[in-house]
């Protein structure tokens, strides 16, 4: 229970604005206005994975993307990857694999652009305690029209990549179990190619802008919610950044490897979750370290600092610049996440360009199938971090159980650590003003949380425990359910 009895004074920030989804922050202050407690609450409970139980497996990629209208492609593709396993499609055709990648990188581009320009840039351009009437994209459009215009057009391009690969800008339909149901025509390719070089140029400008905004208020940006965290991300076999597929990499606060290139189909051997009474969003942790010590950070800051290289030239150059900046002090600065996010946006733009030049996108071999199996796990790096979809399908092809751990849920504890740090550093002992309270939201916004995704996550998967005696005879069997 929240301790809201005297002598504590309760302050609430609700609704959180310029974030996606529903959340609120509560602060408890003592009689000297010192922060006793700061919490980010996720206040909604829905039943997505529960009500897909009993639906045919092939419906799942189009149903579950409705978890989130900002990153529907993440859920569409993570579910499709899980369903590939269900239909025994262990290797997609090059055309299908590359079309999905193109769709995914289109989404990374549009989501990152939306977050940086439409949601976060007002804090960075005008100041955390600027007039709240000015802290929005409308004022950015009035005072920095070229920045606002490029933000809108970057997002538009990403949405157009999605439309031409998925069929619709929001909640498309093209990823299906075993592949895709359309390719990219030459006309569609040429339509995207005519703008992609401008998009790369603007993405480079965006990296420079994010760097400049970080640098111009350096002391505060480095200090603000600066903390070391364990990290989790997917990584390509050669150590390169890959947002569509890879093995699991976990590192501790000092950067030492906890595990690496772990095949993700048995993720629960490495991750568990905890519940707290004050939030519907669970708190995942690294199993080996336990619930107190095992929390970690996912997303752009983790991916940029934990990959060995980025396989596109401009973005990799930007990554090295980021790592070297001020003797590496940006690597653990929460506000440097914006900069890291723009480096990823540049990588997405470069990757889209490379894919558009690949003739495999005009191929017609779209689907594969193999021997059906009952369980499928799909994972990818969504804009906000590692995303896990896990399904069990019965012999009638109906979903029996589902478990989702979404990106924002992985960052639950990290966001709470960030707001506690900001509350103690900037609010402690001060008379609270609107501008000071916005500091808390600035810390949350850096994670670009998708609270909508987080609130939908409800599901279960079966866990079967067998007690086997020394002779290999089953002496007891217990079945229960594990939920998201």
């Amino acid at each position, binding site marked *: *229970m929240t301790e*809201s009895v005297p002598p504590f004074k309760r302050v609430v920030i609700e609704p959180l*604005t*310029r*974030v*996606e*989804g*529903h959340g*609120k922050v509560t602060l408890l202050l003592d009689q000297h206005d010192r922060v006793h407690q700061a919490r980010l*609450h996720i*206040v*909604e*409970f*829905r*039943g*997505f994975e*529960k*009500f897909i139980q009993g639906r045919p497996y092939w419906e799942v990629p189009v*149903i579950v993307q*409705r978890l*989130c*209208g*900002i990153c*529907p492609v993440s859920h569409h593709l993570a579910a499709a990857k899980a369903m590939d396993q269900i239909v025994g499609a262990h290797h997609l055709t090059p055309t299908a694999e590359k079309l999905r990648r193109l769709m995914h990188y289109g989404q990374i581009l549009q989501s990152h652009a939306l977050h940086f320009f*439409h*949601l976060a840039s007002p804090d960075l351009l005008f100041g955390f305690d600027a007039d*709240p*009437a000015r*802290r*929005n*994209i*409308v004022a950015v*459009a009035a005072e920095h029209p070229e920045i*606002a215009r490029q933000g*809108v*057009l970057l*997002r*538009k391009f990403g*949405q157009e990549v999605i439309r031409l690969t998925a069929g619709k*800008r*929001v909640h498309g339909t093209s990823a299906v179990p075993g592949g895709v149901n359309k390719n990219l025509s030459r006309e569609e390719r040429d339509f995207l190619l005519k703008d992609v070089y401008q998009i790369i140029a603007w993405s480079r400008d965006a990296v420079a802008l994010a760097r400049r905004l970080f640098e111009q208020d350096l002391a505060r940006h480095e200090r603000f919610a600066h903390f070391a965290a364990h990290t989790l991300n997917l990584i390509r076999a050669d150590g390169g950044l890959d947002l569509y597929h890879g093995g699991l990499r976990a590192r501790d606060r000092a950067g030492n490897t906890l595990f690496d290139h772990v095949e993700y189909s048995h993720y*629960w051997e490495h991750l568990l*979750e*905890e*519940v*707290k*009474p*004050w*939030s*519907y969003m*669970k708190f995942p942790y690294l199993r080996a370290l336990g619930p107190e010590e095992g929390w970690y950070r996912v997303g752009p800051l983790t991916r940029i600092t934990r990959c060995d290289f980025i396989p596109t030239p401009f973005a990799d150059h930007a990554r090295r610049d980021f790592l070297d900046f001020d003797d590496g002090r940006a690597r653990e600065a929460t506000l440097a996440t914006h900069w890291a996010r723009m480096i990823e946006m540049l990588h997405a733009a470069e990757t889209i360009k490379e894919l558009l030049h690949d003739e495999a996108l005009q191929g017609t071999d779209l689907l594969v199938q193999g021997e059906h199996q009952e369980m499928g796990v799909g994972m990818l790096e969504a804009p906000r971090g590692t995303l896990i979809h896990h399904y069990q399908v019965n012999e009638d092809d109906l979903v029996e159980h589902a478990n989702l751990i979404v990106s924002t849920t992985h960052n639950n504890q990290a966001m709470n650590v960030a707001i506690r740090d900001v509350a103690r550093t900037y609010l402690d002992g001060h008379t609270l003003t609107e501008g000071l309270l916005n500091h808390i939201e600035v810390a949350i916004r850096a994670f670009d949380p998708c609270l*909508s995704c987080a609130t939908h996550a*409800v*599901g*279960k998967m079966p*866990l079967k425990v067998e007690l086997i005696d020394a002779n290999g005879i089953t002496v007891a069997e217990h079945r229960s*359910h*594990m*939920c*998201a």
Partner: protein
Amino acid sequence: MKLRLATTSLAGCFGCHMSLLDIDERLFALLDKVAFDRTPLTDIKHCGPCDIGLVEGGVCNAENIAVLREFRKQCTVLVALGACAVTGGLPAQRNHLDLGACLSEVYLTDPGTPHGLIPNDPELPLPLDQVHPLHEVVRVDYFLPGCPPSAEAIWSFLQDLIAGREPASLPGLIRYD
């Protein structure tokens, strides 16, 4: 004098808001005609008197009801934007399930969370046993279906409202996915 426009998402996915932003650079033309009040894009936490309110998502908890009533009270024209606002949408698929059992299964008896409990802090708004479309809670002036309604449909609809015209039936723009 610009018209004031407020938007919010209740039990929705923000996809309708994304479709609104999918008017792309026409956003700047829209901003010549309207001023944003409470929306997820501004830091206005509570809705002032507005000409138009766009509400995405159905009603799934006590907080949604409070926000919806605030919008109804403050907005001259209230619009149910998208499938969830119009019908409850996909989240209403939980309506045939028992909420208590669902909560218990997710938070209490789940081996993936070894120390289970059902979140019950007073800071959490009470979930409703059913997800409702907006018109079961307040009067709604216009319904714009689709998951999400297309940017073209939203743009055409807003153009009519801003010009003071009765919105056309939008042939070819309305979809029901």
